[in-house]
């Protein structure tokens, strides 16, 4: 799926800056101010989006390290001991969460692209100089993968209104849940 927030935000900011804002009545100060603030917030969002996941992981790692330090240092009565136990438990959970979040979204996206390119090249080469007998298997694999992936791509963009029968496309959350099971 290449219709991603990054390019959508960039296009919206450009439309607002180049076309919409200059067309606002110069006497409508409130509209001009809110137009500029909208562009500013969208620009901030565009800047934050690629870094948000790594930012959160970085913060979580720092909190885990600090929590370990806090647990080691804290001594006291019942209340303190209970708080230490709770923080210890939370730290264990946070640590295992961080351990499973090793690949960033950008890395996953890059791997998607790489897999698409190399798979596409194999298809081209098989139809150029591959053995004729293997083409049916290649065809079936590509068509089967395309069917499942396109269902998710279409569901992701359902609200745009391009689908001839929108009810035939399940919600993206249920499709992703089904894949995860």
């Amino acid at each position: 799926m290449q219709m991603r927030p990054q390019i959508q935000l960039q296009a919206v900011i450009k439309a607002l800056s180049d076309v919409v804002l200059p067309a606002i009545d110069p006497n409508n100060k409130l509209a001009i101010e809110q137009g500029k603030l909208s562009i500013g917030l969208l620009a901030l969002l565009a800047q934050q989006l690629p870094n948000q996941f790594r930012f959160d992981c970085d913060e979580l790692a720092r909190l885990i390290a600090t929590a370990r330090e806090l647990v080691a240092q804290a001594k006291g009565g019942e209340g303190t001991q209970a708080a230490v136990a709770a923080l210890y438990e939370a730290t264990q959970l946070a640590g295992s969460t961080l351990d499973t979040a090793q690949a960033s979204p950008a890395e996953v996206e890059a791997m998607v692209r790489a897999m698409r390119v190399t798979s596409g090249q194999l298809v081209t080469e098989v139809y150029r100089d591959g053995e004729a007998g293997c083409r049916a298997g290649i065809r079936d694999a590509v068509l089967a993968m395309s069917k499942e992936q396109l269902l998710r791509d279409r569901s992701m963009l359902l609200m745009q209104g391009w689908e001839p029968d929108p009810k035939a496309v399940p919600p993206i959350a249920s499709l992703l849940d089904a894949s995860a099971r």
Partner: protein
Amino acid sequence: MAVVDKNRPSPEWIEHLRKRYPCEQEIDRVLTRKLERRAGPPYAPVSLDTLQAGTEALLRTQLTEPFTITDTRWLSGGASKLQMAFVLHWNQPGVGRSSTPLVLRMEPSEAITETSRLREFQIIKAMEGKVPVPPTYWIDAYGEYLPYPAIVYGFAEGVTKPSKSTSTVSGVGTSIPPEIRETLGQQFVDHLVTTHTFDWQQADIGAYDRPAAGTEALEWALNHWERVWEEDSHEDVPLMRLTMAWLRRNMPPVDHISMVHGDYRLGNFLYTEHDLRISAWLDWELAYLGDRHEDLSWSAKRQFGQMAEDGKTFLVAGCLPIEEYLARYERASGLKVDPERMRYYDIFNNYKCLAIVLATGYRAPFNGKTHQDVLVAWLSGISYPLLEELRTQMAEVL
């Protein structure tokens, strides 16, 4: 695997693509120019004053007597070119002092369809008097006077859809009411027949390479659209690779080389509502010499038609059932409609459309190259239902 930076294409990569995908000379020129300019600045907003000044500079090279331009305004519609309407007050040859409503049609820095203004100018001029087209006046083929290449043609009165109708962008989803379907539908057929039987051999269309009989025209077209896919796509799509392999292995030879409009559909003609006459066919930029089945298939796409009130009958261009449409075409043209070639061009057209909306529809706004990136980015969402259609088609033919 060498990684190509498509946003900063190297001269070696450009040359590699040119050699690998030989196509018509003028198409090669505009695609090469697109890549050579890609690393340059994004599209910068152009004011009406700038366009007026550029148009005046162009006209000063064409007109010997004084003239003035007034009433400049933007025209909307279409996803690929900028259009400014204006009135030219001039001494029109053979007419005298006149006030002529005109349109400046100019490219942005990169368009969702990268095409030649020279070809567009030549074909519209060649079709004058044959099918309704705006009269052509002047061309700035290489952007010498205006910020980018442009043509000037007459302003045609009319609407692309009924005033009370709704549609999504670029004419997709337009609804045509029953009472006007027959009148518009018959003209829709007649003009396509005229275009396909037009004697292009005698026409002044030097920017078009003339293909030999057989598959040469189709090979050029496949090379053109695969080159666009290579140049512009962000994510590869194995289904597109499978499709291109099939298209190349199953090329049908053309039995009659026609002038193909390339985007013949509802939304690309104007008609006047008071008399229901088609007043102008627009968007000739994708025209080429090839197989009529491309236009027949394209015009009958689901996205450019609607279902009749019975909920079962698909109406081409919202006007005619497809069987009726093709039967009328055959009767009027004397040219056969071959179901096998219709199916081939159904697949070809989906590939071509995906090269435009999925590949260029990503690359152009990514680099901020158009005057309406937001529209182009929105339009690229149609790629996924189109890919699903293509997947179904490929499952049937493979």
